[in-house]
């Protein structure tokens, strides 16, 4: 059969066009995301790193979620009952839940997952102080028997931030809690492509076609997890802030998860880009004292420091964009269920004169305050400089020591005296959901050297209040106890809350479906 040359060319062009269109369509179904950091650890129970948590949200599902207003909502759970004495909790799982390997999700999987989580997570370990036993009377049911009533069962199971109680297959969840899991199979909306994972380069997730989303609209980590793209690619190599913006402008990536504050106005002015609102609560800056050593072993000195460190200077220096930050007196985040102002006048209604008076009255002996400053972490780099200046103004002697973040992370775990390689103060930033609950907030654990988090505050009264809070089952009572804890925290000067801010996310205009996630979550998004 002979083919005319023009016909052949036309056919070839048509074939080329079809291929090009298919390639473009395929590309349209790939969401290209630049995450806020590198993904190294694939076990979200083993580490508290936010990147591992976000990876967890892609591939695992949770029993409960926390909606955009910080309310706990069922997710994998269809229904549950609580005995009148609050000691027996029975949960029924939704129909159709299935792991990526095709096996159904059962109560046994849930129990094994919770047990492993309880060995690593602070709130999980608090919950397991009350758990007598767990069982699964039917494949779709599990029960939690408590030794005594406690008021945070749902809060713990719906905990939205690190460590999130993700549900894994029993055989994986039975891995020693202090060893990382080797298989990455969940029942979540995406499946992890281990064969395409290149550490420091790329992580790939594909749509889980068997995932059955809830009917409710998405909200926070709760609601329907609907997936409208075939594939999500995390670009782990693109970490230079300017290069991220360039790539976004050029259409080479779709979303930059953590836009640098310096680039906010540029992106805002670009008509091809958008700054979607994804968080109601944002993050909180914090200055933490080492309670073990002089002079911060003295509550009055800590109070003087808190009084000197009013929030506005920190926020202005670190964030800079007025619309992205707000002073908030609450250690438990403003506008969350336990957001409080009790006792906060010490800082909120303070001025330098008052701080100077407090320091004078404290008996401070002039010991230089060793502040650790991370030079390589732009997100909190300016906080120590501001603190040093304010503390000097109040009358403290300050020894500002520059180091990289990882040196700081190693050093803050040391309990040695500051002159022997220890420290007095460091600064950090928390996602709202890591500090909004009086149980999850690590600074409220004041069991001295036994307490989990660096700084090792000691206060028996706070321990007692926290114990009462754990046992309280009435919301009104819980709120009252949270207020008392908050006031006590300022009284003993556990730490200095330094204000709240929103971390902007930038995206191309053709991406739609953003909602308030209060985290970094990639379902419900469409690429047009």
């Amino acid at each position, binding site marked *: 059969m002979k083919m005319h040359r023009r016909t052949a060319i036309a056919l070839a062009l048509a074939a080329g066009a079809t291929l090009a269109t298919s390639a473009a369509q395929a590309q349209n179904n790939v969401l290209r995301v630049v995450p806020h950091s590198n993904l190294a650890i694939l076990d979200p129970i083993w580490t508290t790193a936010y990147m591992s948590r976000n990876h967890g949200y892609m591939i695992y599902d949770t029993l409960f979620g926390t909606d955009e207003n910080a309310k706990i909502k069922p997710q994998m759970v269809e229904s549950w009952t609580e005995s009148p004495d609050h000691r027996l909790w029975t949960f029924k799982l939704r129909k159709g839940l299935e792991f990526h390997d095709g096996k159904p999700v059962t109560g046994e999987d849930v129990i094994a997952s919770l047990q492993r989580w309880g060995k690593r997570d602070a709130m999980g370990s608090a919950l397991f102080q009350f758990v007598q036993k767990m069982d699964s009377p039917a494949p779709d049911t599990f029960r939690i028997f408590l030794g005594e009533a406690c008021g945070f069962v749902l809060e713990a199971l719906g905990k939205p931030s690190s460590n999130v109680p993700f549900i894994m297959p029993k055989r994986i969840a039975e891995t020693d809690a202090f060893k990382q899991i080797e298989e990455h199979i969940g029942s979540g909306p995406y499946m992890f492509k281990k064969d395409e994972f290149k550490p420091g380069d790329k992580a790939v997730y594909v749509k889980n076609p068997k995932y059955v989303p809830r009917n409710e609209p998405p909200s926070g980590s709760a609601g329907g997890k609907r997936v409208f793209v075939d594939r999500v690619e995390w670009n782990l190599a693109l970490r230079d802030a300017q290069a991220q913006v360039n790539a976004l402008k050029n259409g080479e990536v779709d979303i930059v998860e953590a836009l640098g504050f310096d680039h906010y106005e540029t992106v805002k002015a670009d008509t091809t880009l958008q700054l979607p609102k994804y968080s109601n609560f944002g993050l909180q800056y914090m200055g933490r004292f080492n309670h073990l050593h002089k002079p911060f072993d003295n509550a009055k000195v800590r109070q003087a420091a808190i009084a000197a460190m009013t929030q506005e200077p920190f926020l202005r220096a670190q964030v800079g964009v007025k619309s992205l930050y707000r002073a908030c007196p609450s250690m438990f985040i403003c506008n969350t269920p336990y957001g409080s102002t009790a006792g906060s006048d010490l800082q909120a209604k303070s001025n330098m004169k008052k701080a100077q008076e407090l320091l004078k009255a404290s008996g401070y002996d002039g010991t230089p305050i060793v502040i650790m400053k991370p030079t390589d972490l732009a997100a909190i780099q300016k906080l120590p400089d501001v603190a040093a200046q304010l503390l000097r103004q109040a009358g403290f002697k300050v020894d500002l020591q520059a180091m990289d973040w990882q040196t700081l*992370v190693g050093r803050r775990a040391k309990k040695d005296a500051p002159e022997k390689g220890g420290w007095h103060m460091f600064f950090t930033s928390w996602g709202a959901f890591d500090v909004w609950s009086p149980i999850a907030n690590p600074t409220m654990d004041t069991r001295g050297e036994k307490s989990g988090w660096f700084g090792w505050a000691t206060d028996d009264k706070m321990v007692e209040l926290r114990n009462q809070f754990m046992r309280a089952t009435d919301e009104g009572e819980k709120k009252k106890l949270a207020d008392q804890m908050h006031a006590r925290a300022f009284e003993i000067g556990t730490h200095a809350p330094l204000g709240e801010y929103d971390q902007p996310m930038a995206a191309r205009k053709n991406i739609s479906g953003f909602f308030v996630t209060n985290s970094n979550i990639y379902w419900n998004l469409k690429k047009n």
Partner: protein
Amino acid sequence: MLNFLARRLASTLPVLLIVSLLVFLMLRLTPGDPAAVLAGDAASTEQIAAIRASLGLDRSIAEQYLIWAGHLLTGDLGQSYYYKTAVTTLIGQRLEPTLSLALITITLAVLVAVPLGVLAAWRFGGWLDKALMGFSVAGFSVPVFVLAYVLIWIVSLKLGWLPVQGYKRLADGAGTWLYHLVLPALTLSVIYIALIARVTRASVLETLGEDYIRTARAKGLPEVKVLMRHALANAAVPIVTVIGIGIALLIGGVVVTESVYAIPGLGRLTVDAVLARDFPTIQGVILLFSFVYVLVNLLVDLSYVFFDPRIRY
């Protein structure tokens, strides 16, 4: 020649041994705790201690070194603390982008710099010579990241000719591979063009004053032949040395360029490993870099025989 080769190869062993020991000790003596990095921000002191024990970091330094060196003898560089992946696998993944970038950069630099250097020497004191000297000073002075951002702004964002970032593997197609490497290679090559052109110019200038050049010209040889066959060939030894060092430096990682262009190469791996105190990975890549330096130096030495037959080993 074979004796020389054997001796040189044998001499790499003590070099690598000393490097391994020094790197191992330095890492253990510098501040920072890999366990604290891995545990995350909200981890407790107890969790960090448990991770430290699981990584074997609670053992004595001597014990840790002997275990690592024992594995090294079997070709096992250990497992990354940070990525839970074999260090050899990590290096394998990062080798292609780094080698690709090094290859294209050095090729571009040699193709541009050597002719420019020869021409500048030939027209010593003329406008081309002055322009080249000016370019060299600028090439050395402008920081790589500034040049990278300027090129990205013009070539990618304004003209839309090349991508802003990213690396595509050669297996994805030579065209795509090259398309993603042109801009980073161009950025990186500027400093090497400046360096190689200066050395070429100086070296050729020296040979142009030799008697055999005058003889060649007196014989009526065309100027191109005089320059290429006689001047350049005899000036080649220092030029090849500089190119060799350039290759070794490029393979050793070009952190800034890799960061700005998001190329997942060895430089980026090294920085990530240092920041995460990922001891096995740092030890692995530094051993590799040492080996590359030794090997490239050996190859440069061997190449002298080709360029200057008077040299014998």
